[in-house]
């Protein structure tokens, strides 16, 4: 099992603001806040530890503001953590994520990681076509044959069930669900080892949500890509995640097999979440 480890996160913390020595003891679920009353800094995430294995989907659940996006943003280098360690295992190599130089980070981000954001404007370049968005990621990985890029883009869009006749259209002409599919195609372009999904179905129609979740499960079945799925939606967790982390006010309050958490939630907060979803 350890050989299959893709990611090991230990004690990840992210504080917005200058921080003080009391930040951590005065925030968290038992204080019902993530804002330090002493210095006003936001403890967006603290003491986050977990492991992720090949082919697995790990769910991160919690209500809005609990620090879910912060956790993945730090791992995807969108933010710089305040402290902690994360090791990425890939093709026999280990990467100490928070101690890489800019070029190494860029390499992992462009080649070995993929990110799908809730807001397609963050993941797609709206000034270029759907195909161009995928081409961009392929061009980053030194592919320099136009025809090959074209074929690979068609293959990916086909894979994510976007009409390939529309590949030369601008993303703004696409529905929200289609934009997410293009984002997923772009993220998958380089066959990443690790895929981050941040509220990818939030805000979409229920039928569209279901189709996209199906697609994600299909990808999981076919590839060994490990995924972290961030959501506030219990339904998404139930469907996708084998294991789940529950966050509140920046801390992990519960973690384990998704089935167990849903059937027998230990933490009062999780109990309420589960009860309200029934």
């Amino acid at each position, binding site marked *: 099992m350890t050989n299959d480890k893709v990611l090991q996160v230990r004690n990840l913390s992210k504080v917005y603001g200058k921080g003080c020595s009391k930040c951590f003891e005065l925030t968290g679920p038992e204080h019902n806040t993530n804002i330090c009353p002493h210095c006003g800094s936001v403890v967006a995430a603290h003491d986050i530890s977990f492991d992720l294995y090949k082919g697995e989907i790990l769910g991160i659940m919690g209500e809005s503001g609990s620090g879910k996006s912060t956790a993945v943003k730090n791992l995807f280098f969108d933010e710089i953590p305040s402290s902690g360690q994360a090791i990425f295992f890939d093709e026999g190599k280990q990467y100490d994520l928070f101690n890489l130089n*800019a*070029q190494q980070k*860029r390499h992992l981000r462009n080649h070995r990681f993929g990110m799908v954001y809730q807001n397609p404007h963050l993941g797609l*370049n709206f000034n*270029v*076509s759907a*195909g*161009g968005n995928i*081409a*961009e*990621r392929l*061009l*980053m990985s030194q592919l*320099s*044959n*136009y*025809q090959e*890029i074209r074929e690979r883009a068609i293959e990916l869009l086909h894979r994510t069930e976007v009409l390939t006749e529309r590949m*030369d259209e601008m993303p703004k002409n696409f529905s929200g669900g289609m934009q997410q599919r293009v984002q997923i195609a772009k993220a998958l372009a380089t066959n990443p080892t690790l895929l981050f999904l941040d509220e990818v179905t939030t805000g979409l129609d229920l039928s569209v949500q279901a189709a996209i979740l199906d697609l994600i499960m299909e990808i999981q079945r076919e590839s060994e890509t490990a995924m972290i799925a961030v959501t506030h939606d219990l339904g998404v967790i139930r469907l996708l995640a084998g294991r789940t982390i529950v966050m509140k006010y920046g801390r992990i309050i519960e973690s384990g097999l998704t089935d167990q958490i849903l059937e027998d939630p230990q933490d009062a907060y999780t109990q309420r979440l589960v009860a309200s979803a029934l």
Partner: protein
Amino acid sequence: MFNQTFSADTQFRKASAEYNFGFLDEYAKKEVRRSVLKAIAIPGYQVPYSSREMPMGRGFGTGGLQLTLSLIGKKDTLKVIDQGSDDSVNAVNLRSFIEMTCPGIDTTTKVSEATLIQSRHRIPERELREDQILVLQVPYPDALVVVEPSEDKRKIMHGEADYSRLLVKLYEDIVKFNEITISHRYPTRINGHYVIDPSPIPRWDVPKLNNSKSLILLGAGREKKIYAVPPYTLAEPLEFDDIPFRVESFNDSTGKRRTCWRCGCDHSFLDEFIDAQTGDKRYQCSDSDYCDEQIKSQVNNQELEG
């Protein structure tokens, strides 16, 4: 337009006696030269410098002018061209300004005689030599400006040689038009790293940057940047393996190469214009010195034969 900004011409002529050789003070020249050295040491990298106020609007070639004024010495022979011509208003004005502020220098219209060539929009047809320097005037120095508005981000992209978004533009061009349509300012990678905007030269001139015998310096006055393509340096236009860079074609609809109506040349960059009397399209060498040279050598040949 240029004449207007330059209208203080006679006043300036009087005052110019009080100026240093080359108009700029020695400190300013030294600073430009230091930037030039750095630009040569890091081929294609845009070196910032404190562009001075010149007695003409920025955008009239002040970047190239400051390079020329910082490099020129009394023994130099200067050629100034604009769009291939020595006689255009811009070229004439710049040349007379440099002559005025650099007493003792020689000027020429012949490429072969020049030691220093300042140009806008063209690189001479005749291959330059090791003992010549070409100064190109640049309006927009950064090839990435079309894909990234933030200069800070562009700097990082250059540092990391991250040009995927430029390549996407080429990709989109091919999707839309079946070819790369960029006609001027063709993004060109220097020495395997930095991609430059080679100033508004036509694609025709881009291959002349590659492995050039002469030093090529590019100066943007308004944007305060100097960059260089040093001699014998790789300069590669961005392209795809299967859709290579191409220069402009001057073939007519039957596939025959058009020729210059004046000198008959069939291998130069041609300007198209409409004959005022007949209304027909005419083609003429854009490089006027090259055109003259061809005519002269034809006359010589005829004399020899006759």
